[in-house]
């Protein structure tokens, strides 16, 4: 019989819960408690940092916030210990969400800058705690605080609390891993801008993940305060806590829910072994060495290295499910009704006027070709419609609703999908997952199962069905362009923006792509496409709009517009007659 992961967690948890009844020396319980505590810290850190790639070096701050919350409430206000644990979680979560609310608004504050910032927050918090009555520089003793007698001895009680927290944290990490939240976070990890454009509410997701991560660390801190029974700023807010946590997660594998727990167990046992053997210094050096070796030779971590093979085997068996009945974008007849109206759109990038009062109208069911020389503002226009940039002035009205200034994920959910000129697939997600994501988060907003069959349909449509389980890195340019197309279609858009899908393709591939785009139109989609391949533009477009220096200089039927002298001038220069 095959057990699900939560069943395994519960089973192992039940087994471990019997340990205190064997009458082992307290030493063993304390050792296991330290492992549980490390599991909670590493796994909770991973919920934000591993899943979404925002590596926080501030986990010590939230752990410490929990420790000091419990220390203060129990020793100064005489609140019963167990009651302080929720408070410890809440305080840590509020702190995290407060930091996140500011930091996550800034697009560039990722990677190493986010790590630095969270580290700085730790030191600021440490200084404040040290200099206020919370600590006052003396440390807070908890020796006088009574521990509730859940089990016969204090060490057993702490053991059971630690175990419960570890199980809870693993269960939460596992649930998020499978939930829509987890899918969104993994997409943020690979390419946050694209995730947002596909409909993932990135800001909210990061905040939720950060809040949960901090809350769990806070509760663990509350328990740990009782375990060490003497809380000091120097020990609590040292840089060692976040670095160990990062090390554990990286060692185990940050892309798997169980990875950090594995790393935490290994590292804690190792450090404990060295300390017990009177070689604590050698133990630290060994940990440093392990970190280097893992990054150099196994950047995906233990589980990252070994799990994909197992999953690959399992996936082969599920890949054979039949494709669902053809879902299509809204079948709408071409009409003269306006779907999208852009008025006086302007956008400047530090002095360069990319768009200068452009007016464009897109009619329901048509293919509109957007042409113009390099730098005329075509791609900027696509970026503005999809909500990637904020506009300086003007309006963008989609189906009667002003979408200018909306966050990109709201634009996507309203039914606008786009492709990128240079394909930007989520590098660590399979081709199938890449296409499933917009079906879940875009206008279609399907559940995972339905989204997956939707994705399979569009993979079939674009000829990528064979590659469903491959990673995008294994595709050639032609296939990656079609993956872009499949992703856009899977969200069942009402308006499809194609940014140079044909560039870089061979003539044969271009013919194939033209046929595909025509089929999409026949399904009833409205398409705006930016293109340099003129014969494709002439063949496909119902109407074309010519941009030059951010202004619309011509608009109408392809043959007629391309013959106009001002358009010829833009493309070929002025005749010297």
């Amino acid at each position, binding site marked *: 019989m095959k057990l699900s992961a939560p069943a395994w967690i519960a089973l192992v948890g039940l087994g471990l819960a019997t340990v205190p009844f064997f009458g082992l020396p307290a030493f063993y319980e304390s050792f296991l408690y330290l492992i549980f505590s490390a599991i909670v810290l590493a796994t909770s850190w991973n919920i934000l940092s591993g899943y979404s790639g925002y*590596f926080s070096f501030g986990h010590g701050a939230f752990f410490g916030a929990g420790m000091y919350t419990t220390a203060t409430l129990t020793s100064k206000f005489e609140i019963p210990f167990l009651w302080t644990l929720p408070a410890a979680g809440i305080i840590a979560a509020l702190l995290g969400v407060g930091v996140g609310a*500011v*930091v996550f608004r*800034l697009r*560039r*504050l990722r*990677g*190493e*800058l986010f*790590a*630095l*910032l969270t*580290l*700085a*927050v730790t*030191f*600021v918090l*440490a*200084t*404040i705690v*040290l*200099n206020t009555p919370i600590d006052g*520089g003396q440390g807070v003793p908890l020796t006088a605080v009574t521990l509730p007698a859940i089990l016969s001895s204090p060490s057993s009680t702490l053991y059971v609390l630690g175990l419960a927290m570890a199980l809870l944290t693993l269960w939460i990490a596992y649930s998020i891993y499978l939930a829509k939240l987890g899918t969104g976070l993994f997409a943020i990890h690979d390419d946050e801008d694209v995730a947002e454009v596909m409909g993932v509410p990135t800001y909210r997701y990061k905040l939720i993940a950060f809040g949960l991560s901090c809350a769990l660390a806070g509760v663990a801190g509350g328990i740990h305060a009782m375990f060490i029974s003497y809380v000091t700023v120097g020990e609590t807010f*040292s*840089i*060692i806590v976040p*670095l160990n946590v*990062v*090390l554990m997660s*990286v060692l185990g594998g940050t892309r798997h829910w169980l990875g950090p727990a594995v790393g935490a167990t290994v590292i804690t046992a190792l450090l404990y072994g060295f300390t017990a053997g009177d070689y604590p*210094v*050698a133990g*630290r*050096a060994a*940990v*440093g*060495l*392990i*970190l*280097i070796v893992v*990054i*150099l030779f196994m*950047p995906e971590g233990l589980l990252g290295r070994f799990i994909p093979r197992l999953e690959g085997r399992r996936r082969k068996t599920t890949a054979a499910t039949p494709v669902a009945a053809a879902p299509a974008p809204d079948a709408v007849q071409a009409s003269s009704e306006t779907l999208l109206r852009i008025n006086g759109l302007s956008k400047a990038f530090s002095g360069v006027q990319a768009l200068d009062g452009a007016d464009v109208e897109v009619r329901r069911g048509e293919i509109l070709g957007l042409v113009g020389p390099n730098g005329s503002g075509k791609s900027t226009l696509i970026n503005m419609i999809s909500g990637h940039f904020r506009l300086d002035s003007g309006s963008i009205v989609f189906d009667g609703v002003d979408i200018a200034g909306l966050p990109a994920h709201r634009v996507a959910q309203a039914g606008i999908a786009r492709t990128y000129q240079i394909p930007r697939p989520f590098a660590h997600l399979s081709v199938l997952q890449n296409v499933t994501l917009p079906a879940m988060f875009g206008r279609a907003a399907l559940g995972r199962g339905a989204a997956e069959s939707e994705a399979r349909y569009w993979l079939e449509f674009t000829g990528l069905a064979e590659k469903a389980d491959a990673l995008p890195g294994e595709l050639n340019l032609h296939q990656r362009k079609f993956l872009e197309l499949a992703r856009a279609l899977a969200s069942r858009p009402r308006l499809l923006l194609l940014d140079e899908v044909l560039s870089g393709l061979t003539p044969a591939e271009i013919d194939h792509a033209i046929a595909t785009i025509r089929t999409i139109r026949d399904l009833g989609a409205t398409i705006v496409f930016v293109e340099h391949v003129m014969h494709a533009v002439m063949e496909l477009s119902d109407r074309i709009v010519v941009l030059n220096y951010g202004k619309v200089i011509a608009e109408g039927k392809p043959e007629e517009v391309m013959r106009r002298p001002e358009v010829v001038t833009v493309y070929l220069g002025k005749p010297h007659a």
Partner: protein
Amino acid sequence: MNFPSWTLLGQSLLSGIFIGSLYGLLGLGLSLSWGMLRQINLAHFALAFLGAYLTFQLTSVGGMDPLLTLGLIAPAFFAFGVLMQWLFSRFSISPFNSLLVTFGLTVIIESLIQWIWTADYRKMDSVYGEMKFKIGSLYVPLPELLTLIIAVTLSLSTWALLRYTDLGKAMRAAAEDPQIAAAFGVNEKRLALLLSGLAATFAGVAGLCLALSYTLSPSQIYAWIGVVFAAVMIGGLGNPIGPLIAGIVIGVAEAMTMALISPAWAPLVSFSLLILVLLTRADKV
């Protein structure tokens, strides 16, 4: 609150400038490797402390003049920096992973220091230690003054090297775009080795200055990380003079906080500054 005397304030200003110049000196190598090699080298601090301990050993036990120890330390550190860069480029380490790898290295060096010199505090006795002179009512300790002079000299000469020599121009080109620079005949791999060696040498020099004026202990390695990163971020990545100026600004701000409010609040100044800079200037990094 008692307002401190002008002499005390002047003395604080001076000590702020002195410690700030050490921030700048530590930040110089860090800024070069971050801005031009895209590596966040945490091990820079561990290297500086290793240098400090080596200076301590050669001076206290070997009886050398502290300044002369550089003759041994500088080439050794240069070689270490070259080796490190070779490893980084061999494994094509991403900026973020460089942070983790160099943290591993930091822990190893810290353990090594603790193993050799124990976790006890060490203070170097040297001929310069007690030397100071007086300007008006202000005391100027010689070791700190030396640090200031060294920091200013190294920062300015690095700036001149990058700005005016062909070698420096090639380095800047390689930092901007290694592939394009290589296409124009710049041997960017060798320049990166040179630059990394230079940064490690600067760590050795900073170590000498640490040994001259400060009490050493292995755990102190971590005490400098935050504030020096703040100086580097504020001063601008890859900018050889920025960290020195920013370092002095931070040093003076800290010294004033100590004099006017309380010494324990001083870290708040540097880290709040760092947070502020990250929030407002992140786009320019």
